[in-house]
């Protein structure tokens, strides 16, 4: 259910943004109206011109036209929201279906486990019979009708030959479990960690049992108070399970003296149980939502029957182990005491149940239906191990839910933290093949990082990386980077107006090797002011640069006379960003300070097409300032990131605005697109990076808060690795981060 909530919040947030935008607009409108009265001059409306400075510029038709225009815009936005909502709803339906499926698998697996347990018990009895020639003193099953029903139910299932089937089923179950866990984002490591815990637990077997007595009692008491929270239950159940696993050990250990084997088996069991419990986090959420009333009741019943089981087993073991050595006896005494304690508690539980007779009947009814009850019993058993799990999950529950929501999608997590710059990291470039990243910073340097050479950082999931090489040549902040197609060279542009071409050192270089002046291959000089953007044409190897000297230059870095062409546009002003149009290599697209983007022909430099954002209020609109322009790698689409929080999509062929969305809470600064053109990554001064599924409906798939602010700047660049699953963000806080 939380999944849905989250998405709703997201859309709400987005809606709110647009609403704010709308309000701002209205505010502007009001200002204008006010201005009529005061006769103030307002520059940003082209239709009215500045001809009559003294006279009021706004006519009634003008205002009406404005209002009409705004109304149309709101309508369009509203229909957009409606479609978005419908999309989200259909997604919810899909996810719900998915969850239902998973729940079925879950209960199925639990039944299997129960069956295996029963079979094991049978096996032990058989073993005892063989060894001592008599039946083990089984406590009459008739004591508990539930138990018997349960046993019968299982017996029918477990009648067929025991061991081979078990192994098979065991393995199948395990495989399925693991698949499932992988799907929800749990990996083998988690299972390993759990098994390690179990191992520890077993080593400290005796001590643990002693300790367990207390939580046990507490747990049951909470039950008696009919607290419906699962916490108390959990601790009790979990200790119960621990005890159970110990029984297994003792049961096998004493007669056969194969403690190793038994240990291993018990371990296996316990681990599986732990894994089982990790599913259980789906279950309780559900139960809590839907049938809060039932839950407390069912749990009580469960406790009752489980305690009986426990007691039964305890006694069984005691009688079994007449010839057990002293140490074991001690353990058993402990267990016995435990069982007695439980017994007392159980009575209380039973009393409790009697008090709630009415509901009791209902419970018994369901209890008799073997299948359902069985599952419920077991799910609470699974819940047992959940005790610690829920606690740890609580703090990041949204994250986990998110995880399961995106089970079919990749979720990016911060893995590497790249700190070594002294000031804002302005630019990022990944190596086309290797796990190598280059960063450019306002501290005048570029640094080369090999993500495979990490420094283990303690107590944190992210790894620290130290730079392997520092490129020094710029006399000022480095503002932009680009990587050559083969990854041998990289280009950097700086505030000093210079573009440097660097030969990349080996990615395994010693960071304190001696200085090699050949790393700086050449400098491309020609710009007279800051170089803000570089882009490489991957088919020709040409480089295009945008500078605040008002020009865009095309370079061929390999040739003797590198400068090929210069483009400038007097009317639109200074270029802010540039990119090659990917599917037509003879075109570049340049964004200008005027918030207009123009597609130029590379050969002639002629402007071919003008891309104008809708609702431009004047020839220059600083609020729509374009911070970054990129072209889609496979489709004829140009994407722009704007200061007014929008991302806009244009058609390359006719220049129409295909799509526009409020993407962030603050100015969008950077864009990156994956090689397949399916996902768009955007960075913003709101400190977050967002991943968009642009192939399908342009929805936000993930948001990560990544960097801190310095002045009003936060995230300055984002990047996708062309071939490996890495994304990176660069921040004004002098840190770069890599996500996997």
């Amino acid at each position, binding site marked *: 259910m939380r999944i849905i909530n989250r998405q709703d919040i997201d859309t709400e947030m987005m809606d709110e943004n647009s609403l704010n935008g709308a309000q701002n607009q209205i505010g502007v409108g009001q200002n204008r109206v006010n201005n009529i009265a005061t006769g103030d001059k307002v520059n940003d409306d082209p239709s009215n011109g500045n001809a009559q400075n003294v006279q009021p510029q706004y006519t009634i038709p003008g205002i009406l036209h404005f209002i009409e225009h705004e109304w149309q815009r709101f309508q369009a936005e509203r229909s957009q929201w409606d479609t978005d909502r419908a999309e989200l709803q259909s997604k919810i339906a899909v996810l719900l279906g998915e969850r239902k499926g998973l729940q079925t698998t879950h209960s199925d697996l639990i039944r299997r486990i129960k069956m295996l347990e029963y079979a094991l018990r049978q096996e032990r009895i058989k073993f005892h019979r063989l060894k001592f020639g008599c039946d083990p003193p089984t406590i009459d099953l008739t004591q508990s009708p539930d138990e018997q029903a349960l046993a019968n139910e299982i017996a029918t299932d477990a009648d067929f030959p025991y061991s081979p089937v078990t192994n098979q089923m065991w393995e199948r179950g395990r495989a399925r479990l693991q698949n499932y866990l992988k799907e929800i984002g749990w990996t083998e490591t988690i299972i390993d960690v759990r098994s390690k815990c179990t191992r520890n637990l077993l080593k400290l077997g005796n001590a643990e049992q002693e300790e367990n007595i207390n939580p046990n009692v507490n747990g049951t008491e909470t039950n008696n108070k009919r607290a419906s929270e699962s916490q108390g239950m959990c601790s009790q159940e979990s200790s119960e399970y621990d005890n159970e696993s110990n029984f297994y050990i003792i049961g096998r250990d004493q007669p056969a003296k194969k403690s190793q084997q038994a240990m291993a088996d018990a371990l296996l069991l316990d681990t599986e149980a732990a894994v089982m419990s990790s599913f259980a986090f789906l279950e309780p959420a559900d139960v809590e939502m839907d049938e809060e009333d039932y839950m407390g009741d069912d749990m009580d019943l469960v406790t009752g029957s489980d305690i009986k089981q426990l007691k039964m087993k305890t006694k069984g073991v005691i009688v079994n182990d007449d010839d057990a050595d002293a140490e074991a006896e001690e353990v058993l005494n402990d267990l016995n005491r435990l069982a007695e304690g439980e017994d007392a508690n159980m009575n209380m539980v039973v009393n409790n149940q009697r008090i709630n007779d009415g509901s009791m009947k209902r419970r018994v009814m369901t209890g008799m239906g073997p299948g359902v009850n069985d599952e419920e019993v077991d799910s609470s058993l699974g819940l047992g191990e959940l005790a610690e799990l829920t606690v740890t999950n609580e703090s990041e529950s949204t994250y986990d839910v998110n995880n399961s929501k995106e089970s079919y999608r990749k979720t990016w997590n911060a893995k590497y*933290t790249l*700190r*070594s*710059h*002294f*000031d804002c990291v302005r630019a990022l470039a990944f190596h086309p093949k290797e796990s190598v990243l280059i960063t450019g910073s306002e*501290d*005048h*340097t570029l640094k080369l990082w090999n993500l495979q050479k990490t420094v283990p*950082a303690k107590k944190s999931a992210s790894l*620290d990386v*130290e*730079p392997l090489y*520092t490129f*020094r*040549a*710029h*006399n*000022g*902040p480095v*503002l932009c980077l680009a990587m050559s197609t083969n990854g041998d060279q990289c280009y950097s542009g700086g*505030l*000093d*107006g210079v573009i440097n071409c660097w030969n990349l050192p080996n990615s395994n270089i010693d*960071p*304190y090797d*001696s*200085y090699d*002046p050949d790393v700086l291959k050449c400098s491309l000089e020609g710009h007279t*002011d*800051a170089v*803000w*953007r570089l882009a490489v044409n991957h088919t020709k190897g040409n480089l295009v640069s*945008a500078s*605040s*000297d008002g020009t865009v230059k095309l370079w061929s870095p390999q040739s003797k006379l590198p400068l090929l062409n210069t483009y400038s546009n007097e009317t639109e002003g*200074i*270029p*802010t*960003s540039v990119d090659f149009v990917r599917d037509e290599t003879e075109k570049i697209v340049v964004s200008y*300070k005027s918030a207009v983007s123009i597609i130029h022909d590379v050969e002639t430099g002629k402007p071919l097409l003008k891309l104008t954002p809708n609702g431009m209020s004047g020839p220059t609109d*600083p609020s729509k*300032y374009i*911070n*970054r322009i990129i072209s889609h790698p496979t489709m004829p689409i140009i994407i722009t990131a704007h*200061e007014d929080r929008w991302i806009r999509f244009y058609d390359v062929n006719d220049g129409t605005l295909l799509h526009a969305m409020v993407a962030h809470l603050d*100015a969008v600064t950077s864009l990156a697109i994956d090689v397949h053109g399916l996902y768009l990554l955007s960075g913003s*001064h709101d400190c977050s990076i967002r991943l968009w599924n642009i192939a399908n409906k342009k929805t936000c798939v993930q948001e990560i808060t990544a960097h*801190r*602010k*310095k*002045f*009003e*700047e936060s995230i300055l660049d984002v990047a996708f690795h062309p071939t490996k699953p890495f994304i990176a963000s660069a921040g*004004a*806080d*002098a840190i770069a981060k890599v996500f996997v």
Partner: protein
Amino acid sequence: MVMEASQQNQQTQQPIVRRNRPGTTTKEFCQWPDENFEEMDSTLVVQQFIQQMIRKDPSNVEKLLNMPDGQDEGVWKYEHLRQFCMELNGLAVKLQTQCFPATCTQMTATEQWIFLCAAHKTPKECPAIDYTRHTLDGAACLLNSNKYFPSRVSIKESSVLKLGSVCRRVYRIFSHAYFHHRRIFNEFEEQTFLCLRFTHFVTKYNLMSKDNLIVPISDAVSEIPGESEA
């Protein structure tokens, strides 16, 4: 652009947005109105404040070192040192064009000492340019180390002690440049006053012994007491 923006800001009473957007010219870069230290609310306030003052007047050494009230001194020193190391990159860039391993085979200033490069497992006699680069790289790693300086808001006392050795090492870059590449040193110093600022800094916070401060600093500030070590 900045003019326009500020005019509009005055009209609409909007807060000033301190950003270097793509397309900003070199002249306009970071040229926004000052922000009061008290009004800065980022975690990087100290860096912001120091850089703001340097941009205004890099030669006013006294003002630069004038710590705002209530500021943690450890962080203040740390951020200043970060800024020094960052600006020293500029000197290193200049040295790269003139200081070659063949000519400056050792890191020396006066004939008295040969400095060994501490970046290696066993300190070694690196050529001066390597020493410079390694020292700056090492300082960058140390000052950004998650172990010693995990936060830029508060710093452990034990980590503050590390600042002294960083100061001592990076100072050798100044002294080498002064004694062997005087033209570069003078050029750089005219623009940035970095050595002057650094000398004041380490003297004020007692991060280096005065005997080690071998670069004479210009007459303009020699009247300040305690600065006559030469």
